[in-house]
């Protein structure tokens, strides 16, 4: 895939944010906050770092794989998948509607290209990604496996089972990323269930931690992802701590948990869209 200029990638980020807002607004349900905060990550990954083939096949042999463990970011993932050619952009209209392939949370049942496992019930994606990474090793396939988790999701015990395992088996073809926005549905993570020192925790579990301090700055994200790639193959699984702001890109949504799972009304949508230029054409 030809590399895009950063200006072009930035345009995709802005368009993705518009897609997310319009998608959740249309059905008055869904989770806008976190995908707005992860736009630079999604775009940086799918349009620059990931060696992938939008002509989708489930096994993904010879290509990098991405798993979304925090499945409620589906609107953002669907947007980036559609805009990178996995399925028609117009299909974003069907998000969360009856008879759609774009289920509220990602699913494989209707065969939506790009989705390799259902997610939504939290805490399961890291295990799946590690399994897929080990299958790659068994197949002598030197491509990488990526997974995105939420920070609140780290409250699930299974994550730490997988953390022990990933280090024990030296799963060094895996790059896991934590969307470290400090927010979850009931409030700030430090109030709901304090995660304390995540860097120290992952390091204590035997992972190599790569901090991406400004997860809403595209160049920082690109640099951080490139650095993570350079850290693979050295006997340890990689964890990106991606510092983002929930709701980034819309002034009244940024930095609060209030838009975790709430859609904007008509007026709020108009306000939000006025802050995000239609760069590539709405679906």
């Amino acid at each position: 895939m030809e590399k895009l200029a950063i200006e072009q990638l930035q345009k995709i980020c802005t368009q993705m944010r518009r897609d997310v807002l319009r998608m959740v607004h249309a059905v008055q349900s869904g989770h806008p906050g976190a995908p707005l905060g992860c736009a630079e990550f999604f775009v940086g990954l799918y349009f620059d770092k990931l060696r992938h083939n939008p002509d989708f096949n489930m096994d993904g042999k010879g290509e990098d794989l991405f798993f979304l463990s925090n499945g409620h970011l589906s609107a953002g993932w669907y947007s980036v998948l559609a805009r990178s050619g996995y399925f028609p952009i117009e299909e974003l209209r069907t998000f969360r509607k009856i008879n759609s392939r774009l289920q509220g949370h990602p699913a494989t049942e209707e065969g939506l290209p790009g989705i390799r496992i259902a997610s939504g019930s939290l805490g399961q994606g890291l295990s799946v990604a590690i399994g897929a990474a080990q299958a790659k090793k068994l197949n002598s396939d030197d491509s990488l496996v990526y997974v995105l988790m939420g920070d609140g999701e780290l409250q699930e015990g299974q994550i730490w089972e997988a953390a022990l395992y990933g280090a024990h088996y030296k799963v060094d073809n895996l790059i896991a990323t934590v969307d470290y926005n400090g927010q979850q549905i009931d409030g700030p993570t430090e109030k709901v269930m304090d995660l304390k020192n995540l860097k120290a925790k992952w390091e204590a579990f035997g992972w190599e931690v790569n901090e991406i301090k400004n997860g809403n700055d595209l160049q920082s994200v690109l640099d951080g992802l490139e650095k993570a790639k350079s850290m693979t193959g050295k006997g340890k699984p990689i964890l990106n701590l991606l510092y983002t702001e929930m709701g980034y890109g819309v002034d009244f949504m940024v930095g609060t948990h209030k838009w975790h799972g709430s859609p904007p009304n008509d007026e709020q949508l108009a306000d939000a869209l006025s802050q995000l230029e239609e760069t590539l054409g709405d679906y």
Partner: protein
Amino acid sequence: MSLDLKFTYTEKKDTRSGFGDGFLEVGRKNPNVVGLCADLIGSLKMGAFQKEFPDRFFQTGIAEANMIGLAAGMTIGGKIPFAGTFANFATGRVYDQIRQSVAYSEKNVKICASHAGLTLGEDGATHQILEDVGMMKMLPNMTVINPCDYNQTKAATIAIADHHGPVYLRFGRPSWPIFTPADQKFEIGKAWKMIDGKDVTIFATGHLVWEAVVAEAMLREEGIHAEVINIHTIKPLDQEAILESVAKTGCAVSAEEHQINGGLGDSIAQTLILHHPAPLEYVGVYDQFGESGTPAQLLEKYGLNAENIVKAAKRAIERK
């Protein structure tokens, strides 16, 4: 006077050994078969595979939720994971992981569950799961298999590797008569009529198939001719075989090492009530937890034996 049994045995063995031996055989046959186990390799008899194929075997430690997710992930890339632990930890403990990452996602994972039911014995009710078949059969896309002896378990283990899709394979710990042939062909979803009869049909699964064989001989001594059908695959259920048999006999008994709520008996009841209403008696555990004891003591105390199948058959016949 000894019973005139239609099936006999010369040797006893645990069904988990049938699994372990079958697993080694499919490992040799198919390089995509991989194994996972949550710190119970010896109990699951997975050690021979691990020894022969160390690169294709993954000790997960005591972390069953992670094991299920790993197995689901390994299917992406074409592996066929056999994930083994005790039936309790393979189902109830990880139900949501199986539901989302395996069943809903249609992953080719084989959940291999040993020490199911009361015959686990002395460890007691914490480990004696009697609800697993119900939980697993409720999941769309899931195939549920409960073979009856060493040979059938081995054959089933080999067969599920060639079946694409999630499978729950249930087996157990006690030494048990080997009464089915070593060279049997295992057909998933195809019930096996072991003994012809005309008065009542006994539908049995797992260890209780042997008890059904004994019950048939006991009933025959009293002039009652029972048909015995081995339902090794609880889902998909061979409804055709069930309906054909009950159309002839007019009544039935279900026999399983499981709660009567949600087990094989309920699947048969559903089939009969929808297509051919007829009396059905349940031999199973009646809404109770188990307890410590030897397998034989427990089967007797909870009524999971030939004597109780005989009584149930007579009740069913009376209700015709």
